[in-house]
């Protein structure tokens, strides 16, 4: 597909928002400014943005523990996300979710899940309501190569196919589940499992190219919106950082050469070069874009710092829609 220049620039903008946001978050974790840990999408920005840009504003999306990229890619404001990571009251979840459980219903983000695989049925249910309410919304479930071995994925693929639900199963194959290489725990090629559930399964080998990912996902989204049912899209990519920030393993579970080769394929650098080459934008425009996004990330941190911590009583709110149960 050929896309308008402003759309291409928006893709780069969103990839940059993810990159700068995650780089900042990583620093803050190491400085102890963010409690717990975070899982960055650094290196996987093309895979995330290629998918989210193929969705409409009001389409639904669920994700996993590698969680910042998804809502950012879907268009969420950075301030409330950063405030959430810091555990502040102005956080998108009021400080109760944290990095692994971001959700921004305003942009169709129905929630990241700290439980691997667990959000896939949720996305399936959102697709069911689109179908029953006939509102034309499409649903997309992000999950990793590791999550692809959870049984609930196959239950979801089967029921989605039978009911012809408007959903895309988006497998982020970064080739590792924590320390475990995908090929050591996965039989065959994941995208080949789709045909057994009577749906198209495509494997995007070049997950570092945002346009390639976009094309594959857009095809699946159009298909879903046209009422033709679910698709499975596997995107091969690589995470540049450790599984989670601060994690240090004695074991070199990732091949050094392979790693070096992948680090060369930075999706943001690649797309930047592509745009310059094809005259989509000049150096000045791109530098301006980068500065803008950096400023946006700075602002998000300022927003987080400004925010108060939540009141103690907030811990007892929203267990139910009415005040019920534990009070202190």
């Amino acid at each position, binding site marked *: 597909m050929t896309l308008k220049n402003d759309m291409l620039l928006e893709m780069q903008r969103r990839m940059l928002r993810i990159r700068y946001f995650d780089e900042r978050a990583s620093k803050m974790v190491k400085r102890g400014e963010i409690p717990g840990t975070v899982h960055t999408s650094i290196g996987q920005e093309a895979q995330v943005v290629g998918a989210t840009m193929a969705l409409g504003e009001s389409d639904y999306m669920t994700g996993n523990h590698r969680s910042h990229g998804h809502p950012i890619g879907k268009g969420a404001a950075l301030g409330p996300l950063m405030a959430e990571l810091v555990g502040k009251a102005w956080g998108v*979840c009021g*400080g109760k979710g944290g990095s692994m459980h971001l959700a*921004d219903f305003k942009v169709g983000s129905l929630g990241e899940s700290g439980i691997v695989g667990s959000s896939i049925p949720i996305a399936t*249910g959102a697709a069911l*309501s689109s179908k*029953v*309410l006939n*509102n034309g919304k499409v649903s997309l479930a992000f999950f990793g190569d590791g999550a692809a071995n959870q049984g*609930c994925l196959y*239950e979801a693929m089967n029921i989605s196919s039978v009911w012809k639900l408007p959903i895309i199963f988006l497998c982020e194959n970064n080739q590792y589940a924590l320390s475990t290489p995908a090929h050591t725990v996965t039989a065959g090629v994941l995208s080949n499992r789709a045909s057994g559930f009577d749906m198209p399964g495509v494997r995007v080998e070049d997950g570092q190219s945002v346009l390639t990912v976009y094309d594959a996902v857009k095809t699946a989204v159009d298909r879903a919106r046209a009422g033709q049912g679910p698709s499975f899209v596997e995107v091969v990519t690589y995470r540049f950082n450790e599984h989670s920030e601060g994690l240090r393993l004695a074991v070199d579970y990732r091949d050094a050469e392979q790693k070096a080769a992948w680090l060369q394929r930075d999706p943001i650098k690649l797309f930047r070069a592509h745009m310059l080459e094809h005259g989509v934008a000049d150096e000045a425009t791109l530098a301006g874009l980068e500065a803008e996004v950096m400023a946006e990330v700075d602002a998000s941190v300022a927003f987080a710092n400004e925010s108060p911590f939540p009141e103690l009583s907030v811990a007892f709110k929203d267990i139910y829609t009415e005040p019920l149960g534990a009070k202190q």
Partner: protein
Amino acid sequence: MTIMSYLGAIGAAQREAMDADSRVIIMGEDVEANVYGTMGGGKSRADKGDFLQMYGASRIRNTPISEEVMVGAAAGAAMTGLRPIVDLSYSTFLYMAMDQFINQVAKSRYMFGGQSSMPVVFRSAMFYGLSTAAHHSDRPYPMFMNMPGIKIMVPATPTDAKGLLRTAIDMDDPVMSFEACMLWGLKEDVDEGEFRIPFGVARTVREGTDVTLVAISSAVQQAILAAKTLEAEGISVEIIDPRTLVPLDSEAIFRSVAKTGRLVIADPANKTCGAAAEISALVSETIFDSLKAPIMRVTTPDTHIPFSPALEKQLYPNALTIADAIRKVAGMKKQ
């Protein structure tokens, strides 16, 4: 008013809700064929199953045998505009979807800071006492009481089944309905019109002065029999049916025990960490000084359910075991 069975009352509440709100849908295994009899128009079953005929295939959905995605999909649908009722047939199958229940259904609203509500009802039948053995006879509501976020109803009469279920379907929080197959055939006069019974309000089944008897689900019928026997012996028993366990009307229990000073709890669930344990703990930490005797639990012991009727019958609280426990505490004077 009309004579309605417990099973019929469940069907009637669902019918009311389906008629009242097009966002209500029903999904589950074999719901189209109305295999368990709760998807009925009330008349005789039609050749395609009543609800399917009445509401169509978009709102009455047979699912694959995939409890995990069934529960999660209902949750996802509930967060995005539908109000699903999920028929999970037997309570012992709930474990298949435990992650979705605990990590998604119960936690989402909280984790996301109130961004979502979760209007969904999960129905299941506790098929105990009918020789179906360990894979069909569990009464697992205490496990769900241990994790907040899901409301729990345990109706013991047709009226409560209809009124509570209607409230549940209209509610914006997730609800689990634990229905006792032993009661499916129980009949009484029930209002055919719309009515709702609030959660968290216990029903005083019978007033009394000597001993408070809290009875849950199918134990209520046994409690009534026991109370009648004991009346003849001069022991006056007050029976309280909480009707919902989350929220639990502990105040009603406290008021009664404050009056009688004695408490027996009859609960068909397993003993350890069961609903009876919680009620006992609440009472002894809250109104200890009113207690004149030990709090006794009459529950199913901590066994699995054996197949043979020769073994199973002895396990559940019945009028005799309940009466014995009451006699014990009634006789006991505080030293």
